């Protein structure tokens, strides 16, 4: 008997007294009903307020938040990288080329052959995102064309992430999951990496990018608050 059979047989024996009624949801008769009466989103907000909450929560977990309209985005990205002193910047292949128009640093494309050591010699990374969650201050990356392989947002120490507002912003975790594809590798990012392992004192910056800069960019024509 394989270990698979052993374990499954043990499970079935352990549950021998549980009626196998296969009712809705397929749980045994002894199971409590699953009632999803928790909130889809906490509180009522306008779209603008949801974006504002995202900005607040990102900032509270020590991400730097910048705002821009579409026209001002290239200049803002160029400025953020220059202020950082970045000499080499890695970008996913599907990033909007216009975003990099004012980047003075050397731009390296995300490639399958790139080694982790090569990435370690890169200063910054610029990506888009798939979804941003206002209530938790979370950016979700799904390895899409403007986000690239997971490692490019991990090894460099400085991450500039562009969020299209309000289109990519959802209120809550329950609103985010249906917009994500489980088969894609996802990375949920809430602030720069951190640890509380030393006396439960929060320290920002361990292994992932220690500086996370988020640019909330208004869709073209929607107007914006300008850089900064």
């Amino acid at each position, binding site marked *: 008997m394989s270990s698979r059979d052993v374990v499954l047989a043990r*499970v079935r024996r352990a549950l021998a007294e549980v009626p196998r009624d296969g009712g809705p949801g397929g749980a045994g008769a*002894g199971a409590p009903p699953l009632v999803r009466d928790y909130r889809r989103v906490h509180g009522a907000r306008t779209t603008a307020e949801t974006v504002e909450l995202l900005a607040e929560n990102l900032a509270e977990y020590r991400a730097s938040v910048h705002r821009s309209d579409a026209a001002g985005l290239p200049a803002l990205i160029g400025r953020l990288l220059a202020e950082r002193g970045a000499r080499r910047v890695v970008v996913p292949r599907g990033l909007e080329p216009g975003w990099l128009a004012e980047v003075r640093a050397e731009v390296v494309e995300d490639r399958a052959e790139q080694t*982790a050591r090569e990435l370690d010699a890169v200063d910054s990374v610029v990506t888009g995102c798939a979804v941003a969650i206002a209530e938790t201050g979370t950016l979700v990356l799904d*390895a899409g064309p403007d986000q690239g392989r997971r490692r490019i947002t*991990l090894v460099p120490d400085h991450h500039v992430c562009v969020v299209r507002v309000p289109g990519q912003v959802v209120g809550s975790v329950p609103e985010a999951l249906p917009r994500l594809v489980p088969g894609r590798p996802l990375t949920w990012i809430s602030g720069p990496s*951190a*640890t509380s392992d*030393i006396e439960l004192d929060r320290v920002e910056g*361990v292994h992932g990018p220690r500086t996370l800069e988020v640019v909330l960019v208004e869709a073209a024509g929607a107007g914006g608050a300008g850089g900064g």
Partner: protein
Amino acid sequence: MTGTYLGMPAFPRAAAGSTRDARLRANLTHATHTIRDKRARAVAELDDWAQLRAAGAAVKDRTLLRLDRYLEQLEAAVVAAGGRVHWAADAAEANRIVTELVRETGEREVVKVKSMATQEIGLNEALEQAGIRAYETDLAELIVQLGEDLPSHILVPAIHRNRAEIRDIFRREMGRWGRPAPEGLSDAPAELAEAARLHLREKFLAAKVGISGANFMVAETGTLVVVESEGNGRMCLTLPETLISVVGIEKVVPTWQDLEIFLQLLPRSSTAERMNPYTSTWTGTVDGDGPRTFHLVLLDNGRTDTLADSVGRQALRCIRCSACLNVCPVYERAGGHAYGSPYPGPIGAILTPQLRGLAGPLEESLPYASSLCGACYEVCPVAIDIPEVLVHLRERVVEGGPGVRRGARVVLKPAKGHAAERAAMRAAAWAFDHPGVLRRGMRLAARTRGLHPRRLPGPGRAWSQDRDLPVVPPESFRDWWRRTRGGSSGQPSRGEGDAG
């Protein structure tokens, strides 16, 4: 479980030592009180916490009662996504499987994400015997590993170490295993974190094999989820060519949508954050992104035995948040090591005796390592009634009864001789030395008067046959005294903060 903590004394004896360690107690008190208050604030932000908690418990219960079905569904989904699935009935088998998988790669070093399951099975020791060095990459696990120490908290395994001790360990040990600590390293947490970043970066960049656990596995999609803070998890999950995940079979949840419950419950209960810094999800393998080979090792190791107990099985809902440790007056004073397993605190007191069986003095004493104050149940995000299971296990220790060991039905004998009584009396003696613990226990006794039996169960039955058991008064003497000695206020001054 294996011998990670082999030879640990029973809880009262271990606690008697650790409670006299003033530094340990000071570290623990500071840390647990800090996180306790933060957690309360994070939870209070969500006005539907009670509904989320009930839904979390219901999802877990419903899954456990059809666990075979969901495991088969999970296996099929992982395989369809390009992963390989292995089944391990016990720790030894899991260790054999992982060792063999690492050998097949030809590598002698692996990087590890913090994982309770691999601590439980003693994987690092097993790999070491096979000549494979496992590098722990979570900061606290690194501190524990470099200090040749044992973890003492689920979330913060080095909670018993303060910053000065950590600096000393880094200065002394880092150079033995790789990049030494920077010259003049101070005990500032930011500098210590920087030292760990530099030391471990070399390991990550060179790593060919990563080993992880998982917080959740989604049956319908075959997706695994790892929740973390530091980014060491992302490093281990994405940079190596081969990824091996060792996961307890109780970690499965049926649907992708179910994550909306647990990704709200876990971070707020655990680190008291709205969301932890990094969560990674992956489904099998992806061309050109992350490991080319993915192995999932599904671990039983006593879980099916636990599942067979209709009262005790609720322990399998546990999502390893550690909120119950942080509020426990016994944990705060005894520390994690006294529990003799990787699962300390209230959850450990019900999990360890069930996973291992009531196999010896340590396991028999753990159900007594509690004042039954109920704070653990209050904070548990999946509503595990830990006091109920503790009482149930105490009954098993004293009376014996039916149980399941390694899948076989057994009849447990009452704890040998007067061992049970001795265990209980030692625990009582310890509680009398710790007035806060005693006070809470007495209050609980008073509040649960309606449930007290008129006859003792088990060996006490003959004694109580012709005698009435003394009735527990509605209020303990201590509470009565606290209430009346001032004369002015009729209100007992109780609250969660008065554990001392």
